[in-house]
Structure formats: C-alpha cells, structure tokens
C-alpha cells in the first residue's frame, strides 16, 4: 500500500468579521512514504494549518488531499477518526497529555475505545521503555519534566504504529538540549519504524536536517528543498 500524502490546490480560508483570510493558498505538495519532512516559516505563515489538514484534524476549504489513492478530505468524521487512528500520530507543542492520566495511561489513551490484536499495556510499557521512561510509568504529567512529557507524548503517538508522525513544534517548549534529544529520537524512529515524520518548527538548524524542507510564507510554499545528504 502506498502511504504517501499528496496535496492538490489546497486552500484554507478563515472567515473573521467579514474578512476572508487565506491561511493556505494553492498548496501543491507531495510527501513520500517514510520521509522526514520539516516545515518552517514565521508565525502565521500557515505551517500549523497545513499540518492540521495533513493530520485530518481540520478540513480544507478547497482542494484535495490524497493518502495513497484515497481521497481523505471527504470522509465522514467517524471514518476520519478511524483513519487518524490507523495512520496518524500527533505530537503537540504543549504535549497535551491528559492531566488526569498517568504516563502509561496517556500512552494507552488512543487504544482505550478500540479493540486491537495486541496487548495494550505491554505495547505501551515497551514504548515507554524505548523512550527511557520505564520508571515513570505511573507518574502523572504534572510530575514529569517537559522533555519527559514530550517523550510520553511521542510514545502515545506511536502506540498504534502510525504511518506518519505529525509534530507541531515538538521542541518549541523545550530547552535546546532537550529539544535536540527529542529531535534525535524522532530521526531514530523515522529510520527504525519506517514511519514518515512531518515536523513543524521555527528552528532553521533543525529544519535543515530533514529530507525535505518546506518553507512557507503567507499561506504559500515559497521554497521546497530536498536535502542532498539523505538523498
């Protein structure tokens, strides 16, 4: 199966007080399966909007998104939820861990309402172990540091083995050192698990290390650069 994502003439328009604002304007881009992609741009350039459309968190105003051969922007919310569950793992800038759940429970949370073939708890525990949080299984988010929290969030995004990991400024709330650790973790996952990673970031240094770098401004892609190193 082809897990590449293709955007065709994507537009996202916000209506605010009678004024139409283009958050995305005519975006045409293809993300190949297993690639590590970075999206950079200043605030309000539309990078987070693009990410939320890719992750099916939101629907485009115009244009189409293809996941392989499947057109996903016309699915019903229930199908979309199932699609997200199967193919997308999300990582947020603010981590968005559920505050009332322990680290382990947070990792298990996407599986809570689903029937799966594997043992949910074992899977979650092994993921936390991979993230180096074996001893933090029963800690609440408030008892974890920022880096630890983001690692729990990554574990949560990976628990159902998605084909794509979407990360919205995963290092934005972290210090440089911790940020670097998280970034390396993502790179490692990209290689080992063969899942594609799309990362939105401010940091040009981090962005340069991606296979494909996309730069956005005012809702448009102004530069698309494929890194030579990894090509």
């Amino acid at each position, binding site marked *: 199966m082809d897990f590449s994502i293709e955007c065709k003439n994507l537009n996202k328009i916000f209506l605010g007080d009678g004024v139409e604002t283009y958050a995305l304007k005519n975006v045409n881009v293809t993300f190949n399966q297993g690639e590590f992609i970075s999206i950079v741009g200043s605030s309000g350039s539309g990078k987070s909007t693009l990410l939320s459309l890719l992750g099916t*968190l939101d629907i485009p105003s115009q244009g189409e998104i293809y996941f392989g051969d499947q057109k996903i922007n016309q699915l019903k919310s229930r199908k979309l*939820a199932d699609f997200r569950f199967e193919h997308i793992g999300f990582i947020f800038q603010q981590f968005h861990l559920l505050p009332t759940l322990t680290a382990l429970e947070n990792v298990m949370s*996407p599986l809570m309402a689903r029937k799966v073939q594997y043992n949910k708890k074992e899977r979650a525990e092994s993921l936390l172990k991979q993230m180096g949080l074996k001893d933090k299984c029963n800690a609440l988010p408030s008892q974890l540091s920022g880096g630890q929290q983001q690692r729990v969030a990554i574990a949560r995004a990976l628990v159902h083995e998605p084909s794509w990991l979407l990360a919205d400024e995963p290092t934005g709330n972290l210090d440089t050192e911790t940020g670097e650790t998280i970034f390396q973790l993502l790179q490692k996952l990209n290689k080992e698990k063969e899942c594609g990673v799309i990362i939105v970031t401010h940091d040009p240094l981090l962005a340069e290390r991606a296979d494909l770098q996309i730069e956005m401004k005012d809702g448009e892609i102004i530069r698309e650069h494929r890194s030579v190193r990894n090509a």
Partner: protein
Amino acid sequence: MLKFIWNSWWRNKEKFILVLVGVLILSIGLSYLVGITQANNGTIVDELQKRWKSSYDIVVRPQGSRSVTEDLNLLEPNYLSGLSGGITMEQYEKIRKMDSIEIAAPIAMIGFTNNDVKLDQVNVTIPGVYRLKMTEMNNNGVIKEIDEGDFYFTVGKWKPSDSGKEYGTAEFDGSLSYGSYLLLAGVDPEEEAKLVGLDKAIIKSENSRYFIKGDTAEEISLDATIKDTSIPVIMSKKEYADSRISFVVEKLDIPFQSGEQQKSMENVRNNGGLEFLKKQKGIVVEKRTFTTSQAQKKVVEQIMNNQSTLDDHSKFVALKPSPVDYRPIDSPFKDRWTFSYEITPFTLPEDSLIKVDQAYRHVNMFGDDFNSWLRLRVDPVGIFDPTKIKISKDPLTELPMETYFPAKAQLVMDADETPVNPPRTMKPENNPYGFLTKPPTMLTTLDAAAKLLGDKPIASIRIKVKGVNQLNKESEKLLKQVAKEIEKETGLITDITLGSSPQPALTHVPGIEKKKSIGWVEQPWIKLGSSISIFKETKVGASSFIITVLLVAIVYVFSSNLIMMYARKKEYAVLLSLGWRPNQLSKLLFIESTILGSIVSIISWLILGYIYLSNDIDTSTGRILLIGVFGLFIYWIGTLVPAMLVRNIQPYESMKAGEISKGKRYFKSQTPIGISNNYMLTRWKRSVLSILSIALPSTMLIFFIFVTFRLKGVMYATWLGQYVALEVGPMHYLAMGIAMAIAILTTLEIIWQNVVERQPEFAVLKALGWRDETIRRMILFEGGMNGLIAGIIGLLLALLTIIKVYGQFPTNEFFILLATIIIPILAGGIGAVIPSIKAVKIQPYQGLGGGYNNSRRAEKRFKYVFAMGGACLFAGIILLLGSAIPVTINSANTSETADPVQGTKGKVIEVYKTSPSKEKPDKKNNNVTGFSAYYDSAYERITAGEQFSMKNDFTDEIYFTIDIGKDLSSKREDKPKEGYKFISVPFTFTNYEEVTWLMKPYTFQLIDSKGNKYNAKDWKVIEKENWRGLTQLVGKGKASLITTYEVPEQTDNLILVLSYTNLPGDIVVDIK
C-alpha cells in the same frame, strides 16, 4: 473507559467534590420529594370529631319555629337571636316547676332599638344657610356600604313662619348624635345568672349593678291613649357593628347678612326650596367623624357616671327579630362542604315604611304605623361584659349556640366561586335584617318583656337538666325523657343540644337591591345529635414544587455537564486527534451520567428505605422503582444536549495554543464591572442557565413568602373542580432550600468555568497590577449580577402567579416581596465565592500555563469544604426525617373515610329581583316574542289546564305534581285597579313522598310579551294537608290555592314562570 472516567474524576478532586455534592443534594431532594408525595397523596382527609359543651342541654321553642335546615338536623348559628315570641309565661312556669329541671332560662327577643347618643355639638355662629352632609359607612367585613344624606339649616335671625318646608330648611340645634341598632331581649335575671353567670359579668361600680327584685317595668302615661313603658336594662359593653358616620357642615354661597336674609330665603323658596339648595356649592366649615364604638363607649361612660340620657325621651321599638330564610342548594364543592344553603331574600311590600326593597331577613314590624310600635323609656341599671359570661370559650368554633356573641362567618368564595384569600371574617351589620346580626346587647327582665309583648313573650327556653354533666347513654336517655315530658306538658317543641357538634356549612348570599352577590360564606352550623362532623380538606402544592425542584435539578445536571464539556474541550480535541470517534465522546458523557444517576438512585433508595422501614410504611414496588428511574432520568435528560454538542468539537482545536477567549464588546471595558458584563454577555448562554436555575426556586420562594405573610400560610384555590388548600409550611421552604442549593451549585460550576477560561486574562491583569480584592469583587459581582437578574425574573414570575391565582396585585406585601430579591442575589454571590477564591489564587506567572494543578493546600481546603457540606447535608436529612414522618403517619391513619353524608341540593340564584315596577325590561326578551328566552331556559313548558309532574326517569315513580287550573276568571268581590284586570291561577300541589318539597306559590311571576313581570297580588288557600307556612309540603300531602295577579286590561298573552329551586330550570306555563 470506566477507568478513564474514574481517573478524570478522582485526579481532579475539586471538580469531583462538586459533582458529589450535587449527587448528594439531588438524592436527598428526590427522596424528600417522594416522601412528600407519599404523605400527601393528593388528598388529605382530616376527620375531626369535636363536640361542644354548650351551656344548656335542651332548647325549647314554640311550634312552627323550625326552619328547613332542621330537616338535616342542622341549626344555623345564633338561631336563637332570630326568634320572636311564641311561648307563654304559663308554659314557662310549667317547665320551671318540673322536678328534673335544674335551670330553665327563658329568653324573650323583644326587638331592635338604638343607642343614639349625642357625641358633639356644631358651633356655627356666622349667619348663613348651611348644609349638613351625613355619610355613613357600614363595614360588614367584606363590603363597605356607603349611605349618604343631607340636611339644610340656617343660622341667623331669620325664621320660617311655620315648619320651613317650602324653604328646604329645618331647625337644627347643632347636636351630632350617632348610635347603632341594639337587640333588646328579656331574660329571667335569676335563671340567667344560674345558666351563664350574667350577674358575675356585670362591671361593678356605684352606678352599675345586676337586676334586683325591685327592678320592674313601669308605665308612664303621656296622654289618655299614649303611654311609655320604662324598663330596667343592663347594657353590653361591646359594640359588634363596625360603622362610622361623618358629618360635614358646609356654608352655602347664599347672601345672608342681616337685612338680606328674608330676600335670600324668598329667592330660595321661589327657585324650588330643597331642590335649589341641593344644587348650591358650599364651603366646608366643620367636619366630624364618629364610629359606633365611640357611641357605645359614650353610652357606657354616661351610665357609669350616672349621666345617662337614654330615658330622657321615648324610644320606639318597631322591628322584631326574624330568622334568615334558608333554602338548600347544591354545594359547589361537595367534598369540602356537604351542606350548602342559599338565603332567600325578603322583598318588602311597596308601601313599606322601610326604605329598602329587599333584605336578607323577613322584615317583621310591630305594625305598619308608629301607633302600634313599642314605646320605651330605657332605665339603665348596669353594664355587663359579655366576655366575662361563664360559657366555654372555644376559639375554634366560637360557640354559635350561645346567645351573647355574634355568629362567626367567613367569606370563602366570591360570587364567581373563586376562593377568597385569606377568607374574610364578616362582621355583624348595623342592620336588623342584614345577614349577620348582632346578639342581644340590651337586656331587660322577663317581666318587662311580658309587659311589652303581651301574651307570648318568650322565644325560647334553654334548659339544664339535673344530673346531666356528660354525654353518655344515661344522660341521653334522661334528656330524651325530659324533652318528651316538656313536649307533652306544654305542646312546645324541644331539641337536645347536648352532644351537638360543629358542622361547617356554606351559605350563598345572593345579591339584593340590584347589587352583585357577595359570594359564599362559611359558618359553623350546629349539627344536632351525637354525630361526627367531618372536615375534608384537599391539599395541593406538592406537584408545583416537585416540578420546580426537578427542573432545577435538570438545569443543574445540564449545566454541570455542559461546563464539564467546555472544561475538557481541549482534552476531547486531543482524544479526537488521537483517533477517538466523536460518538465515543458522547458515550463517555452518557456513561458518566449513568454512573452519577445510579449513585443518586442508590442514595435515594437508602434514605427512603430507612424512612420506610423505621416507620413501617407500605409502599408499592412500582413507586420505589420510579424513584430510582428518576435519578437516572434527571442525569440522562441533563446529558442529552451536551452529548450532542460534544460531537461538534473539532480535532483541530487541540492545535490552538493558549487561545484567549473570543469576545465581543457590548460595554465599555473601562472598569472591572464593564469587563465582567462583557464576559457574561459573551457567555450569555451559560449565564442564562445560572439565572434560570436561581430564578425558578426564587419564584416559588417569593410566592410561598406571599402566602405565608398575606394569607397566614394557607391559600385556597380551586383545582380540578375541587376546593383545595395550599398550605405552605416548613417543608415547602426546605424544598426550595434544596432547589436553591442546587442553583448555587449550578452558578458555582458556571462561574468556576468562567474563571478557568479567563485564567490567562486574570494572570495578565494581575501582572498589570490589579489587586486581589478587585478580582474577588469582580467575580462576586458576576455571581450577584446573575442572582439579581434571576431575582427580578423570579419576582416578576411570582407576581404574575399571585395575580393569576390570587386575583390582585399584592400592594401591601410588595416591599416584603421586593426585599426577598436579596435571597437570589445572595445565592448568586455564594455561588461565586469559591470561584473567586480560585481567581484570586491565580498567579501572574500562570499566564500561559493553564491546566490543572491540585496543590496540597487546595486539596486540604476542599476536604474542609466537603466535610462542612456533608455536615449540612446530614443535618438536612435529620430535619427531613423529623418533619416528613409525622405527616406520613397522619395520612396512614386517616385513610378511612366516613360514610357518605346526604348533602343539600338546589340551584343558585345570583341576584334576587325586586318588584316588577322597578325592573328594567330585559332587552334580551324584547325579540320577536318576549317569551323566547323563558322558553329556551325552561325545564318544562305546559299550558294552563295541564299537569307538571316530577318523576323518577327510570321507575316512573312520581315525586310530586303541580296542576294548573284552566279557569282563570276570578270570582272576587273586590275590583281591580282602573285599567287592570285580575287573573287568578288555581294551583294544586301534590306530594307523593315522605320528603319535604318546597313550594312557594308567591314567588311565581306572570310575565307579559313585553317582558313586564307581575308578582302575586294575593293568594287564597282552598285545601291543605301537611302544608306548612306557604312554603313547603312536609311529607305526603296536598295543597290547593288560588293566586291572583293584577295585570293591565289589554294584556292577553301571558306566561307564568314557576321558579323552582330544585329543578334545573323554570316551569313555564302558557296562559291565554
């Protein structure tokens, strides 16, 4: 999923505690409400078995003094005051001498006189023509009737040559006097002293004493034929009538200086005398107002000071006491009043000296001209205080059997059968023939009464029998024996009053004198014989507050869920972005509400189980199940909308970072209050929830307060065709307390959420230097504002309810009700306290943090709050157990109902018509033929010569018949008036049953095609058998009579309308 729910509860303790408090309040509220409904069960039947201990055992009355009401063993209250003579002194002596008689106290009702006394003097010296305007106001407790009159006099040298009639003026000495009608009665001083201790009730002083042997009536001859009788009297200290008179002296604008007086008065005479004076404008010179009580006080004062002027001149006694003519009718509310009567008003003959056309009692005069009236000189020997008379004073019933107090009467419904709230107590009128009359307040000796009244002075004798103290079989036997003996010896009628009991009866007071009916009056009647009287009262009210509490509960659960949803919006968005399906979120909410609802049900079951088991109350399993379903139902209903809304949450909301609340500007945000108002308006849907939840119990509370204050706790109303009492007690307030507590919780949740959402805003404001106090006030203001709006809405709704149910704007109580707005404001404020604490705790550095942090201190504090809440709830439960149970037991014991009692039957007449000449022709009847209206409403229509028969529709058994003769030619000796002719209708009534049928031939009217009505001129009884008093056939019997009418000669088309109180319509007879 369950674990997830539990975690989200348990790890967010502040919220969880609130949820639990809500659950507890709901469960207690529910079990309480069920307790109430179980106790009330719609109807409470209170059975009251109560007997009077009257001061006499047997009452002896003359033959023919029984009224229709006695068919059902009922005596009207104060029936003794309406009797006039009938027993001779010999009969009395005979009874007194009987061995078994301990006391035989006769009472001779003589008649009505007045106690007019000079109260002031008008001091007008400036020459002029004056008008004396007299306005009398009689207050019978329901209506204040105004009676006006005027009178003209002159001051100056000018005097008319004779009476001055042609000038319209009269002599006036300037004295202003006033007084009321008094009922004069004769008693045997010795026996009365023994019976009720009248001698002990005398106010002892130099000039006040009881009767002594030497007090006798003396005749004073004024000339050969006229003589006054001077009688010794003792007077009551009390005045029962509430009337006042105001005298206004006006100087008319007529020149009256010396010299022009003669000219002016000639001018007055030439212009019409009195008529001219009536048109003149005047300037008020003097004004005085006096009440009947002031007059009575003055009379008493004068007697006590030996200055009485009562015997200075002759007093006429023209009016004899008379009873009210009652007629049984269908009770409008049979469950409440089994017995209902209507007063048949008396229509005075046209030539009567009395200025009214109709009265509630038969106007009974000593004679048509003053020569036949009694002439008295009143010699007061003492003053008595009726409250000191030795009779058992039962405040519940106020002894309608005793002689010295006015009968109690309360107006309970107006003419439209709408309950009057609170029932209004009626006062005796200053009118001998009014509905409620005064008891005798001027007493003389029996000898004096005999001298005045002649042959048969005594109206009744109250008997006390030796050795009878208690009501038991022996005394009953003895009394029966004595009564029989009296009847045998004297031929008088007797009734045993020992063991009689109060029986509330409803009397319809119809309109007379073209006025509207007053309405329905409840009086404690006397039920003779040892019977049990039954008071039934249907109570409602449970439903109204159950609905209120349920609504408030649903609003609470709804807002609580909604708030929960808002609070966790981001969390849900995250879950969605992690791949949860939207319907799984709905499911999540429903599972939560199911758990909470089940907890409510379980707690309710526990509480009720405890109540029921410990009190041994039977209840149906269906009911128990219902209670359980109720809790679940509330939570499910409250979850419906949030469960739908949760599906609208979009996953991209998880991407929004540190979103500042969206807002619109409605006000200038230049003050904290402006910021608050803008925020509340932005979130108006939430505010509406909070307002609604406070407004509902506020409405009920204000209404309850109104009932408590204005109506002394009970409001009467009609509900589903029943007369019901809404009794507001502690339980109602408790219920509203519970509802209010839930409302406070709702407000708390909503404002809490508002604070949470504005956390960054507050942090920024604090960082900008706002003080804690400002933020606290701002939040409290928001709560108070919600409360204020809720209070205003509640007040308006309550006022509407009051106007709807009570029928008038509560002007007097308005400020009390307005003050109660404090309660919802407080409720809103209290709801805002905890959120305000939270808002104050927000630190500037938390600007973008958000989220939940459960500090140890907060947890501790909430444990404290929780413990407090628990204690309050526990106290609430104890209170419930304490108050709910007695009611429940009560209902369990009173489930038996007494045997159905035969009530009264009859049709109500709103306004009694007067004589035909004064009747305006009825426009409706002036159609093609004037009779159609009568034909339409007729029960049956026959022609002269035919028979009307009343029979059982199923068995054809005949009850009674009325035959109307065909021969209408009168064979009379006298001649009709010029231009008139006689029409004589022969009637024959036949009664086939052993029951009494009312037959009042004199009420039948002839009506011509123009709608003119003719009353009977006279009637002649041809034949009679068991016919009594021209009104009724008592048992099987027959009466034939000829009633003659006088109608204009040209009239040929006539109908005879037989108004029949026992029939649903009139019998109309065509007469050619």
